[in-house]
């Protein structure tokens, strides 16, 4: 595969050399360049397309290009802050005069941004909306859409959930507005709000959309932008728009291929075989020393591999007669660095966008589908590789347990011992097939009798189905029992989502009163059904070990009315007001209202700034709105209901086993969680927007917070009730600047920088005001059963670590079991725990740059989180001598034990809560654009890319970027080296 690429590359290079320098020279072009107010524009770059001839305008704007052979040319004019121009010109043997007037580049301001139920010009926006389109996407291979915009938008924190093929990301817009309800933003794909959450068998619902089909992302951040989505908008909205064909375009064929190799970057620090032997000899009993083996196995090297992936995409677009179309097909094959993990995804998309009746009726049909085959690797192998005795071999030399070495006791498998990590991976087949299709048919009709009025109807669906099998053969140690063992389980799930939207849009410019209005009013109906059949678990002999559970089906429906009014006065003062009335079947009181209002003032257009040369844009935005949260993860929380038990939880009365019926806990008064958001922002631009950006201040307060709290004992049919209780706030600042520091004929440097400060705090978490309330434990860890490390308490950040304050000796070594007696009662009890830091970064920032030199482009992106803390669970769990001091087998330890000398696990020592601040280079990309070759018929671009280039951190574990803040069984992010070729026919 690789060899063919090189051959192609060489051919192209030869071709370019042959076509260069065949022209003779004679005539010239000269003239004056002026700007939009007729002042000279010194420094303007002018050059002939496809030639090295060029000139730079002098101090009075004059230029001349000499020595041009007769012929027809295209003169390219470029000046920072102004639109680039191309002028056709024919040169004979004489000088040709061509004067040029530049036009201010409004860079982005005239760009159209997709917002909820409509579009808006960027310059007219009053809310906080970020647009990221194709040209700004992150470079390099992306298997899931959100990877395209990681780090691009301030206020949006995207944390990938690890390095597994197809694994998703956790996306947080301006912190999280909820505690126990979802904190994921609403995702709208081509006008279809899609179901939150994964179908069984899928680790990432978004990954079912091929990133190569995406045209742009709109991120709606503040309430004035999101409130049009009402009850689902508290955590922001991510609008994904896919690529379309364009009217009048000729057939365009685009092919891209990207081939990558992924490598593990670092291992969890554990004792080597030699170190382990020393430790056992020093701390073990004679019996344990006798158990030491002679091998030297690095188990982590055994479970990881260098993995190949290839992503190939083909698209055809154009316009057939009057029918613009785009059809694409993509195929992704990705091996994971943890052995056996794999993803194969085939995706297809069709877009048809005809306009009928003199453009009065625009139809837009989108169909997307994908089939993904996943094989999941058991993450337990990651911890097993840390814990397995390094002095033992990988293979036993006999056929038992698939040939993998396992701990034995009296000739039987040793039940307590660590399982062979490689055996865990190779012998467990956990595979799924997931299908998803999202589509919509949209009609936009401009009334014949009133062209200012549009009617828009959108019919959409989202269907996904996951099926999977988790199979462990009877001989595998994972599920072994003398002659009887093995585990075979099949599962399925189906999700259906239907959408109907209808809205009217009216736009009118009222010149007489210097006003314009744009009003939208509509209706939306959406229905979600989840169906989960149940299957039994069988053992290797085919006998049922756990009977099938109950078939379940669940439905919820949303009915909404919404309206939006944009009013602009004198093109300087803008008002946006929205209102959504949402009804949900999830609550007994169905209806809620979600209003917003925003004002914007284009200060730059005021007389006192109008003529400023330096300042090119200045706009103040103020917004306020209320949004809701109805995604509580269950459809019938307000209904008094009885739940059937499955066959494995039935109960014997007499000689009969009865399936049980349980009265479920419920809260008949459960309702929306409401988030009020305030936003103050300034958009700015300097030097014709050569430098531009914005700064936003926001404050979000969630009241009627949906949280799981203790129900007073005896009052409900559950001990913890999911109910409206308490409140929570997020406050922050976002700043972004984009600039073009250098722009010459051959060299351009574009750079972007953004930084976000976010602080969240739980304001209250109980119905009764209490000063003694400790809070609610969360954040389960490995080590013991049911242990937690985090807590949600009033006055502190979400998921704060709840730990003991470690006391150190004079050499800075932690003293085992010695903690600060914070309440001074002379004993170390749970009351001495304190809340120490949280996994949420207080600052996150990103810096990206693109350097263009002639046809070369070099780009990189640096990203950093600051103030995020992480609990090193691998060290706390495996960093003590108790790890190997089990009765009759040995287990390896985290290298942490050499520093602490801990005999027993000290899970709750703050020693293990480490500063996880980091700087990561997300990618480094080098591309060469051959331009159009072969008679302009073929566009060729090749690129080489490295992802996850480096990480700088003080964290002692493998990777500090773990969203939950608990580093345990974390599938490491690989470093990915890739080569790609894009061809356009």
């Amino acid at each position, binding site marked *: 595969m690789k060899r063919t690429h090189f051959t192609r590359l060489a051919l192209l290079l030869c071709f370019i050399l042959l076509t260069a320098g065949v022209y003779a020279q004679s005539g010239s072009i000269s003239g004056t360049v002026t700007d939009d107010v007729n002042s000279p524009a010194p420094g303007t770059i002018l050059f002939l397309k496809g030639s090295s001839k060029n000139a730079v305008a002098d101090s009075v704007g004059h230029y001349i290009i000499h020595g041009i052979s007769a012929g027809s040319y295209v003169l390219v004019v470029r000046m920072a802050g102004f639109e680039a121009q191309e002028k056709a010109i024919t040169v004979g043997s004489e000088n040709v005069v061509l004067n040029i007037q530049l036009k201010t580049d409004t860079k982005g301001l005239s760009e159209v941004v997709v917002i909820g139920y409509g579009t808006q010009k960027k310059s007219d926006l009053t809310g906080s909306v970020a647009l990221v389109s194709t040209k700004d996407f992150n470079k390099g291979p992306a298997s899931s859409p959100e990877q395209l915009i990681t780090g691009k938008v301030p206020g949006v924190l995207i944390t990938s959930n690890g390095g597994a093929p197809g694994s998703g990301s956790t996306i947080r817009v301006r912190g999280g507005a909820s505690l126990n309800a979802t904190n994921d933003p609403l995702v709208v794909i081509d006008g279809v709000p899609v179901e939150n959450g994964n179908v069984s068998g899928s680790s990432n619902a978004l990954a079912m959309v091929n990133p190569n089909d995406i045209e742009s992302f709109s991120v709606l951040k503040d309430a004035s932008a999101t409130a049009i989505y009402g009850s689902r908008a508290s955590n922001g909205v991510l609008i994904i728009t896919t690529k379309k064909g364009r009217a009048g375009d000729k057939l365009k064929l685009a092919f891209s291929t990207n081939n990558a190799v992924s490598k593990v970057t670092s291992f969890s620090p554990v004792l080597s075989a030699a170190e382990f032997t020393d430790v056992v000899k020093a701390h073990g009993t004679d019996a344990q020393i006798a158990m030491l083996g002679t091998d030297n196995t690095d188990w982590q090297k055994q479970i990881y591999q260098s993995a190949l992936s290839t992503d190939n995409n083909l698209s055809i677009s154009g316009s057939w007669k009057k029918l613009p179309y785009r059809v694409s097909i993509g195929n992704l094959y990705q091996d994971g660095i943890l052995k056996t993990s794999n993803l194969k995804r085939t995706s297809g998309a069709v877009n048809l966008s005809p306009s009928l009746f003199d453009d009065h*009726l625009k139809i837009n049909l989108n169909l997307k589908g994908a089939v993904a085959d996943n094989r999941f690797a058991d993450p337990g192998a990651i911890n097993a590789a840390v814990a397995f005795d390094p002095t033992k071999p990988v293979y036993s030399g006999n056929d038992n347990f698939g040939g993998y070495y396992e701990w034995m006791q009296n000739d039987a498998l040793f039940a*307590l011992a660590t399982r062979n990590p490689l055996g865990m991976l190779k012998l467990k087949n956990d595979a799924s097939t997931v299908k998803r299709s999202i589509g919509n048919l949209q*009609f936009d*009709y401009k009334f*014949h009798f009133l062209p200012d009025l549009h009617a828009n109807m959108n019919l959409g669906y989202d269907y996904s189905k996951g099926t999977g099998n988790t199979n462990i053969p009877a001989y595998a140690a994972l599920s072994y029992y003398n002659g009887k*063992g093995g585990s075979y389980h099949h599962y399925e799930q189906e999700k259906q989502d239907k959408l109907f939207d209808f809205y009217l849009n009216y736009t009118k410019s009222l010149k007489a009163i210097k006003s314009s209005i744009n009003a939208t009013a509509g209706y939306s109906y959406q229905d979600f059904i989840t169906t989960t059949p149940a299957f039994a678990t069988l053992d290797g002999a085919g006998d*049922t*070990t*756990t009977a099938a*559970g109950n078939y379940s089906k669940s*439905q*919820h429906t949303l*009915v909404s009315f919404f309206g939006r009014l944009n009013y602009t006065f004198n093109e300087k003062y803008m008002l946006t007001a929205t209102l959504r009335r949402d009804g*949900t079947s999830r609550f007994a009181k*169905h209806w809620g209202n979600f209003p917003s209002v925003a004002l914007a003032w284009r200060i730059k257009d005021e007389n006192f700034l109008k003529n400023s040369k330096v300042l090119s844009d200045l706009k103040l935005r103020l917004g306020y709105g209320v949004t809701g949260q109805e995604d509580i993860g269950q*459809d*019938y929380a307000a*209904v*008094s*209901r*009885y*739940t*059937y*038990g*499955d066959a*494995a*939880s039935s*109960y*014997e*009365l*007499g000689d009969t*086993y*009865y399936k*049980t*019926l*349980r*009265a479920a806990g419920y*809260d008949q008064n459960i309702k929306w969680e409401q988030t009020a958001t305030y936003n103050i922002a300034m958009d700015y631009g300097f030097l014709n927007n050569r430098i531009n950006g914005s700064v936003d201040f926001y404050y979000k307060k969630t009241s009627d917070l949906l949280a799981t709290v*203790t129900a*007073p*004992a*005896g009052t*409900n*049919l*559950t*001990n*913890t009730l999911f*109910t409206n209780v308490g409140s929570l706030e997020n406050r922050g600042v976002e700043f972004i600047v984009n600039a073009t520091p250098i722009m010459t004929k051959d060299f351009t440097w574009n750079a972007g920088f953004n930084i976000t400060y976010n602080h969240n705090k739980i304001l209250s978490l*109980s*119905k*009764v005001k209490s000063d003694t309330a*400790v809070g609610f*434990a969360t954040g389960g860890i490995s*080590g013991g*059963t*049911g242990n937690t490390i985090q807590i949600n308490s009033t006055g502190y950040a979400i998921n704060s670590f709840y730990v003991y304050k470690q006391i150190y000796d004079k050499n800075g070594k932690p003293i085992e079991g010695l903690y600060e007696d914070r309440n001074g009662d002379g004993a170390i*009890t749970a009351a001495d725990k304190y809340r120490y830091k949280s996994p949420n970064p207080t600052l996150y920032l990103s810096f990206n740059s693109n350097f263009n030199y002639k046809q070369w482009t070099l780009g990189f992106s640096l990203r950093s989180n600051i103030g995020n803390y992480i609990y090193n669970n691998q060290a706390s769990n495996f960093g003590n001598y108790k790890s190997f001091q*089990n*009765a*009759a087998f040995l287990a390896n330890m985290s290298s942490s034990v050499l520093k602490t000398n801990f005999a027993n696990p000290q899970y709750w020592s703050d020693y293990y809560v480490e500063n996880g601040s980091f700087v990561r280079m997300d990618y480094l990309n080098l591309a060469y654009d051959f331009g159009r070759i072969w008679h302009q018929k073929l566009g060729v671009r090749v690129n080489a890319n490295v992802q996850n280039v480096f990480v700088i951190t003080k964290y002692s574990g493998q990777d500090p970027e773990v969203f939950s803040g608990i580093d345990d069984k974390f599938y490491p992010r690989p470093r990915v080296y890739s080569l790609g070729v894009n061809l356009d026919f």
Partner: protein
Amino acid sequence: MSRKFIYNTILAGVMIWGLAACTKDLDRTPITEATTASVYTNFSNYKSILAKLYAGLATTGQTGPTGTPDISGIDEGTSNYIRAYFQMQELPTDEVVMGWNDGTIQNFHRMNWTADDNFITAMFARLFYQISQCNEFIRQTSDAKLSSNGISGNDAETARTFRAEARFLRALSYYHAMDMFGNVPFSTDTNEVSYYYPNQITRAQLFTYIESELKALESLLPDAGANEYGRADKACVWLLLSRLYLNAQVYTGTDRYTDAITYSTKVINSGYALASSYANMFKADNNVTSKSEFLLASNFDGTRTQTYGGTTYLVCASIGGTMKPADHGVSSAWAGLRTTSALVKLFPDETGGKDNRAMFYTSGQNLEINDLTVFTDGYAVTKWSNKTSADGAGSSTTFVDTDFPLLRLPEAYLNYAEAVLRGGTGGNAGDALTFVNKVRERAYGNTSGNITSGQLTLQFILDERGREFYWEGYRRTDLIRYGYFTGSSYVWPWKGGVAAGVAVGDYRTLYPIPATELVANPNLKQNTGY
């Protein structure tokens, strides 16, 4: 034509809109679940709901073994009633030590628990979960509800028996709550499901309530032995009353030994009889071998009643060190539970050669405990097993079949003897001796272990209860009744967190009301000392 097409399209759109606008779709009711309104109109559901009330002690949710838990805030397996009850009643005593590092589990044996303890919180939650479930069933099966739901005739009669059983299960859980927590929030079937703050009832008031409930149930439940296996009858009421009265001094400050004798006697004469083999009572087929002795058991099954609590916990957590799980009918060893030398020393020899109730695994285990978290410190106990009486396998190797007896006959014998010795009237010392020796004859296989009237002392009865009921959830209550649980009159290895054992504060005879509960309900006051 074109315009016509457009208008038709729009018309069609508006029509669809009109249809979809049907906001009735917002009134969704569960599809694969029942609602309270529907479930009680069909009598065939009643037994499934009753089964859930009994299963409240055995299962942890509607998906076996885990998946849809009844209570949250704790690992699902740990939330099991029997498992939590065992830990509360046995871990702080001389009978059990625990090797794990799960949360605050070590605090039980060290006796330094606090109101924030998650295991105590889980027990509290489980008790009141069970009480709430019972309240709901009792509420929905009143005569008025039965008739409004169209349940009549024999069905209504059966439903009334179910209702009485639910009241018994509620009384049992309130008894556990009174014994462990003392002063607790109080709600009955007269309170509807809603968000409110129940009042706190004192331990003595709760005693009176339980007593009156049980006495009322004497006439409502089926006769002794007349109900199905696994369901409560009159004998269950009598034995619980006997236990209540035996401990009345602790609960109310007034002794009721005479009443204890009365109700013990009723049980003794109820027709229940000792099972032939002690060891078989804790094996996979004990529902078959020990039916005659079990007044009430919590039933487990390896394939049909799966949980990580209950007897699965008791079997698996007692296996570690060099023990082979397969010898105990399971495939995994959780390496947690062992015992102290104090229990071992209650037996004449540790091999069980004389008293066959001594079931210890000693190979590779140290009798004395140097480190609580090392499994090989302290003898392992093999009393609980998933092997059948014929040494066969249970129905599963992951989950255990063995039922957990909640009420079994020998308690009546030993309650009787103790009440007589403590001065109750209506019984006699001769019968007391006979009853104690009945228990011992089974243990020894013959009369060689029989004692004389001179040997029948209160201390002997406590020791005998240790030998007969160890690892069955009696010990904490017994030690408290004897005044040994706290203070220094009796110490055992690692009592108070010290290897030799030290005194602990008397307030620890009650567990604290969980701190989360105090926050949730402002009507509650913490127990003294916490």
